[in-house]
């Protein structure tokens, strides 16, 4: 029983990480219908910015977190301005934007490798993690922090999208940007806000991730980015609750497959389950079927 509870905690920590990053995918997709494949690499950039702030400026945890959020948001906005907006303005097909996003991701990886180097870096431990042993179950304050932050951000985003003016504007952009523009709303500003939000979430995810897994390298965002993307799709991409649900489901499948079956089959079985979910619910667990009107 103690082992089961321990594995459940492991699953929630991993799921919380996936959910944090999945929220960023889902925000951008929800507004722009763009799968921002650079998101995993923006997450990596957020972690590296945090690494520099904490290592060289010796900033404490909260300052590192906020500093990284601000700088990563700047990076996200720059990417939008330089890479995505020109394409949008030229009326390029959505596929071009997705390919551009992949290119931006590759650029960020290789730029980081060229400037910072490919060798792994150690992210300093900024938080005193308390650890408890409850009848064979090891608990750490970090697990609560990760799960708590993911939940809190999910609730905050839900509130923002549903109950604030800017949230309303975001939903309107998602619905029909042309008409919104004709009505005098600055659509670009809403899109920039969306990218600020997405990148800030990536930075927060990066810093928390680096506290749990303190080895950074330029390619750290690739696999985590894929998994978070899958989590977002399984939960229902574009839906904030879906990102959370998808993250926890993916984390749990990974942990419990490794826990009760040979760990070699972990990814194989975990992803087979996810494919099954999508076969049964193509729009994700929380997604509603889309009716196309001709």
């Amino acid at each position, binding site marked *: 029983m103690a082992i089961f509870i321990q594995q459940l905690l*492991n699953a929630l920590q991993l799921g919380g990480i996936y959910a944090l990053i999945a929220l960023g995918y889902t925000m951008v997709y929800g507004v722009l219908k763009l799968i921002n494949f650079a998101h995993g690499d923006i997450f990596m950039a957020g972690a590296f910015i945090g690494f520099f702030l904490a290592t060289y400026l010796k900033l404490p945890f909260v300052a590192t977190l906020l500093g990284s959020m601000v700088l990563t948001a700047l990076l996200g906005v720059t990417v939008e301005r330089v890479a995505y907006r020109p394409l949008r303005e030229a009326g390029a097909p959505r596929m071009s934007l997705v390919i551009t996003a992949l290119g931006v991701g590759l650029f960020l990886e290789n730029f980081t490798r060229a400037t910072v180097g490919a060798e*792994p870096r150690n992210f300093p431990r900024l938080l005193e993690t308390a650890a408890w042993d409850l009848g064979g179950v090891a608990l750490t304050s970090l697990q609560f922090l990760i799960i708590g932050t993911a939940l809190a951000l999910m609730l905050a985003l839900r509130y923002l999208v549903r109950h604030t003016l800017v949230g309303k504007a975001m939903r309107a952009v998602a619905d029909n940007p042309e008409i919104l523009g004709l009505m005098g709303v600055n659509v670009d500003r809403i899109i920039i806000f969306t990218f600020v939000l997405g990148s800030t979430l990536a930075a927060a995810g990066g810093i928390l991730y680096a506290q749990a897994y303190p080895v950074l390298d330029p390619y750290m965002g690739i696999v985590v980015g894929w998994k978070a993307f899958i989590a977002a799709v399984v939960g229902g991409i574009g839906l904030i609750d879906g990102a959370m649900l998808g993250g926890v489901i993916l984390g749990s499948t990974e942990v419990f497959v490794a826990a009760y079956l040979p760990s070699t089959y972990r990814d194989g079985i975990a992803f087979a389950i996810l494919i099954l979910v999508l076969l049964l619910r193509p729009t994700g667990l929380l997604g509603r079927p889309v009716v196309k009107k001709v």
Partner: protein
Amino acid sequence: MFRRIGRGALAAAAAAILLSGCGSPGGSGDGADVIKIGVSAPITGDIAALGQSTRNAAEMAAEEVNAAGGINVGGKKLKVRMIIEDDQNDQVQTANVFQKLIHQDQVVAIIGSMSSKATNAGAPIAEEAKVPTISPWATNPEVTQDKPYVFRACFIDPFQGYVAAKFAREQLGAQRAAVLYDVASDYNKGLAEVFRQEFEKMGGTITAYETYTTQDKDFSAQLTKIKATHPEVLFLPNYFNEVPLQVQQARKLGLNVTFLGGDGWDSPKLVELGGADMEGTYFTNHYTPTADSSAVKEFVEKYKAKYGQVPDAAAALTYDAARILFQAIERAGSLGRDQIRDAIAATEGFQGVTGTITYAGKNDPVKPAVVLKIEGGEFRYETTVNP
């Protein structure tokens, strides 16, 4: 397309070099009283630091033997000249270097290359030309397979699995051991497999045999599973960039065991990334500058005086490879490539910096490994394990 043009130009250049080599048979004029030995080292590229060590150690070995008058070949003292080429740890470049050393410089033997990847590109060329070759550092078993002219100065990967098992059983007195390894990497898999077999053969029990794949950062599920089987030792035959995360997560989960690994741990990064959590862990390695042996102390002092840094394993192995070759040439009593090959294979009880080396007619040496302990953030010599 561009690349293809590049290759063509390269081939043309290589052909030109070959032709010019044929123009002056016997190579340079001083060929009669100098023994030319080729060195293929990754002086630039991704493992450049290692290539520098290779060059330094090769030069040092040559200077020493020349200062003593040279090598006695059939009653005549001949000086050694090292022809050192940069192979960039790149397969194409290594092949070019081997071609040049063999056909243009007409060396009697080659030391190199370092990585298994590069050596696998160069060794077949040496084998075909029947030029005796010793790779100091290529640990992959395949490097010397079916190549009578290709030797190595290091032990092969799986050997460390045996050393770790023996150390865990005999020195740590462990009865129960668990393994967590990267199933997507041959090095890790080979080590894990040999450790399991040997540990069980020595009467121990493997309580858990768990895997993950490269790039995984979360090992909590496997470690929780391992903890439930109550091992005394956890063998982690993985690389230095992943081991710290594994040890840290294990400690967080309250897994109180002795951690053990292989030469994939050998990097200052290990302690930098793992910090205090790495204290009291052990790993096997080729060599340590802190070993309690006069051969090592003498080598480290000389190298430090000459190059201002502590020699790494690549330097130690290159130095041994060069001296094995010198001895073999002397015993062969001729510069014939076949005689030198046979003399290397007959090497017995060679006292090297990395231990006593015997080839026993084979191409892979029988030699000891050292076990290091991490204490105070440093790698301390713990013991030597003989095969």
